């Protein structure tokens, strides 16, 4: 990685991650690694039909420690609240169990036995009758007259409809006035998040203390705690959620599932710990999916390619019920549709549709990947129609850095940056690229770019409230210097492989002048961590959580310098704290050892008037704005005309995510994100039969990228600090995934101009491409 602001000190340094040695020797503590005396094991009973009714649930022949069926579960629980409510959304909570089943995988019971194998055996002995009805999986089919209704009482499968951005009259006026309007129906299929570690939970009820402890693989411990307490009618203080190592989340572990509540309920009933580990087949059907939207999109421009307006009509598939985030991804697609371009008019209409499929929720990129696919494909198609270079067309329409900050027609307050510079950097890389000529005349090569601006770091709480997202947007950090001079950092954000334990430690160590090894970051335990409403979602851990650590560490440093100043009889502003020593700036011979000062402070000694003895500072960081990183990506692909197979030969990224705390980790986030985007572009699609029966339920029929699929990437970074985030960081967790499908799709279109206008839907699998190539006559002669 190259950055153009090299700073001394720990911030900006590629230090090795603090957790890795443990993970490398097999001493991680993932949920299934935990075992407890007396622990029993659960299996969740699930609907095997997409639509119908549970007519009986007979446990007579079932040998198990405990069986709970739909009615008992429903009676014992309150519905789980939705947290993102769209205007007009009537369904604002979801029952934990119901006799009405609406998707394959819906939980309808739980069986607990001494071992997992015995629990699975016991499920086989249950007598469950399901009365099947017709189901529907596709959101457009669900809107056709006569389609099966997911909620017959509603009279239609439309869950909710609402517009975003400029009013339709303004949009239509702009479209009518344009010389060129590129109009396409694009589709982003359903993605299965697929962290390598599935979900899992262990619950233990202490009847004496009347306290439930829940170990869980989750991105959002406090949020999950609140919903467990709500659904089980407990007080929040009766529930403690502890997350250990999390083997990837990508959005799928950002909320409470009914499954996890069933395990808690079982543990309370049995009075012993109960463990449940999701198996991979369950992950394909019971964990919320991502994406699944059709976009009827238009991009309008003048003859010379000046953009005038963009609009999309989104038909989004909700699945069987509103997930916790409901229409959130469709809304974010709409608000981020304009991207980095000067678009005087922009808007969207959203129609969210119920189907007999697993609910759709958060997955890395959250609506923005869809927006990038739609916008960037339209821009490349526009360039083709205008006969312009796609890079020139972008350059012409991108906001210049002197136009920022500004508010887009979809209400985004873009903060800072130089969007064109990322484009220029990638353009230079692409120009310098000299690919080996194709091995045969049947191989086509193509190179193209895609670009975006991203919404990271949810978010000012008030802004979240305006869009109906009912979780506070702040983060809190507690930073304490212990009597021996070591440092304890506690935050409500969560580690799930992104290295946040290391980067938060870097921020604290940097401000406090202590070596990294002296800092311990504690996350994931609601019994210890300060309250975090939203947890680690939306690329917010570093911006919002890190900003809190910056401020709390700075406050602690100031306190230490005040104490030292009193002791040394100099002004605190004349002191510096370097490598465990406090001395007058530029004069290392003067001063005092940090450790000695700290030890005496905790004894209540040597304190100036009015200073308390605790060396602990807390800061609640309510960000002033979303932060907006951005990037340009380019892909070089080869397409085999005879097989439809695509190889990504080279890949470039130029990126600005504000101040980079650890360049190695930032690179890793982008590489991993691009790999997931490559999966979307070429392989991944959750398949359903028309009636809602799932067809992809293993890694043999749902393909995620392998090492041989993912090229070595070349990256350029530069830094425009986020003006309103302490420390200047912007989020970096999702950008790779957001843009990569569009870059690869555009490159495939560039390789195959004959079918470019039909490159509208991912995955661009060999089967899909071969068919398009064949229809275009490229197999003739």
């Amino acid at each position: 990685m190259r950055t153009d602001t090299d700073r001394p000190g720990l911030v900006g340094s590629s230090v090795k991650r603090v957790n890795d040695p443990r993970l490398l020797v097999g001493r991680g503590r993932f949920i299934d690694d935990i075992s407890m005396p007396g622990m029993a094991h659960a299996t969740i009973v699930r609907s095997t039909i997409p639509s119908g009714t549970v007519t009986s649930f007979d446990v007579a022949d079932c040998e198990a420690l405990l069986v709970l069926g739909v009615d008992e579960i429903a009676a014992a629980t309150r519905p789980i609240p939705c947290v993102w409510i769209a205007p007009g959304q009537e369904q604002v909570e979801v029952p934990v169990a119901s006799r009405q089943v609406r998707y394959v995988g819906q939980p309808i019971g739980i069986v607990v036995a001494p071992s997992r194998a015995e629990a699975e055996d016991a499920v086989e002995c249950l007598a469950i009758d399901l009365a099947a009805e017709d189901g529907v999986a596709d959101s457009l089919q669900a809107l056709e007259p006569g389609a099966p209704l997911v909620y017959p009482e509603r009279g239609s499968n439309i869950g909710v409809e609402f517009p975003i951005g400029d009013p339709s009259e303004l949009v239509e006026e702009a479209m009518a006035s344009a010389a060129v309007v590129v109009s396409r129906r694009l589709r982003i299929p359903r993605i299965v998040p697929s962290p390598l570690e599935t979900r899992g939970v262990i619950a233990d009820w202490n009847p004496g203390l009347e306290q439930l402890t829940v170990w869980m693989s989750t991105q959002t411990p406090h949020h999950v705690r609140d919903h467990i307490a709500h659904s089980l009618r407990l007080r929040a203080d009766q529930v403690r959620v502890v997350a250990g190592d999390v083997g990837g989340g990508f959005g799928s572990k950002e909320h409470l599932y009914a499954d996890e509540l069933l395990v808690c309920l079982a543990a309370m009933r049995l009075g012993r710990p109960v463990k449940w580990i999701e198996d991979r087949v369950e992950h394909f059907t019971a964990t919320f999916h991502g994406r699944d939207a059709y976009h009827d999109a238009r991009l309008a421009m003048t003859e010379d390619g000046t953009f005038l307006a963009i609009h999309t009509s989104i038909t989004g598939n909700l699945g069987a019920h509103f997930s916790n985030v409901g229409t959130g991804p469709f809304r974010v697609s709409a608000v981020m549709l304009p991207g980095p371009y000067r678009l005087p008019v922009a808007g969207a209409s959203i129609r969210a549709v119920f189907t007999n499929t697993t609910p759709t929720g958060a997955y890395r990129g959250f609506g923005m990947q869809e927006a990038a696919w739609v916008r960037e494909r339209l821009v490349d198609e526009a360039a083709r129609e205008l006969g312009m270079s796609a890079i020139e067309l972008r350059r012409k329409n991108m906001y210049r850095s002197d136009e920022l900050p500004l508010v887009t027609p979809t209400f985004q307050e873009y903060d800072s940056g130089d969007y064109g510079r990322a484009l220029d950097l990638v353009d230079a890389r692409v120009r310098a690229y000299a690919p080996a000529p194709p091995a045969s005349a049947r191989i086509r090569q193509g190179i193209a770019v895609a670009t975006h601006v991203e919404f990271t770091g949810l978010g000012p709480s008030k802004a979240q409230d305006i869009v109906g997202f009912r979780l506070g947007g702040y983060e809190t950090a507690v930073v304490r210097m212990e009597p021996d001079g070591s440092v304890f950092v506690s935050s409500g954000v969560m580690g799930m492989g992104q290295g946040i334990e290391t980067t938060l430690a870097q921020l604290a160590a940097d401000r406090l002048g202590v070596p990294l090894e002296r800092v311990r970051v504690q996350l994931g335990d609601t019994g210890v961590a300060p309250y975090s409403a939203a947890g680690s979602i939306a690329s917010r851990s570093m911006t919002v959580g890190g900003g809190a650590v910056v401020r709390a560490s700075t406050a602690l440093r100031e306190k230490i310098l005040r104490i030292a100043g009193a002791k040394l009889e100099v002004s605190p502003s004349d002191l510096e704290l370097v490598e465990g020593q406090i001395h007058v700036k530029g004069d290392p011979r003067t001063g005092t050892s940090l450790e000695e000062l700290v030890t005496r402070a905790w004894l209540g000694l040597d304190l100036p008037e009015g200073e308390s003895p605790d060396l602990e500072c807390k800061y609640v960081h309510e960000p002033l704005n979303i932060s907006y990183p951005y990037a340009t990506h380019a892909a070089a692909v080869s397409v085999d005309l005879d097989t439809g197979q695509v190889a990504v030969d080279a890949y470039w990224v130029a990126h600005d995510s504000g101040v980079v705390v650890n360049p190695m980790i930032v690179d890793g986030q982008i590489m991993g994100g691009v790999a997931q985007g490559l999966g979307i572009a070429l392989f991944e699609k959750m398949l359903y039969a028309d009636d809602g029966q799932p067809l992809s339920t293993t890694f043999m029929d749902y393909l995620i990228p392998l090492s041989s699929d993912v090229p070595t990437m070349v990256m350029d970074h530069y830094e425009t600090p986020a003006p309103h985030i302490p420390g200047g960081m912007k989020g970096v967790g999702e950008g790779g995934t957001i843009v990569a499908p569009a870059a690869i799709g555009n490159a495939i279109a560039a390789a195959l101009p004959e079918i470019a206008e039909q490159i509208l839907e991912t995955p661009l699998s060999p089967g899909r491409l071969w068919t398009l190539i064949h229809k275009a006559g490229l197999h003739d002669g």
Partner: protein
Amino acid sequence: MTGEPDIRITTTVNDVTVEAQVEGRTLLSDFLRHDVGLTGTHVACEHGVCGACTVLVDDQPVRSCLMLAAQVDGCRVDTVESLGTQDDLSPLQSAMWAEHGLQCGFCTPGILMTVEGGRRAGLDVRQVVEDALPGHLCRCTGYQNIRNAIESYFAQGVQA
């Protein structure tokens, strides 16, 4: 289906002799994790695709979710716990740390054992990177840094 642990096995796990009674249906992965208590071997798919559960049986990388515990009677099994310690990482583990070859770390033990097995079988770096590594799923890293780590490990001339 029986739940009786009626099969007696003797196996050497990480140089320690283990005698156990197992059920016929017990997977090697479950045996290692839950009976022997070596939770470094991870299970991510239980259908033989992801490679997270890879261990060495008589020096051969195998997917322990596709093998029964009863099948390792008389065999030598090596898991990730046999490689290095937190204070004394193996050269491969050190390379993975230095190159940022892991994020969540869930896939990592399986990959380490495949590379280790490849080294023991005398594969060269190209074979390990191009043939063996694509037998593993990693959802986090994008693989680039894993490849770098393997290359750096082999470049250290550790074949001896």
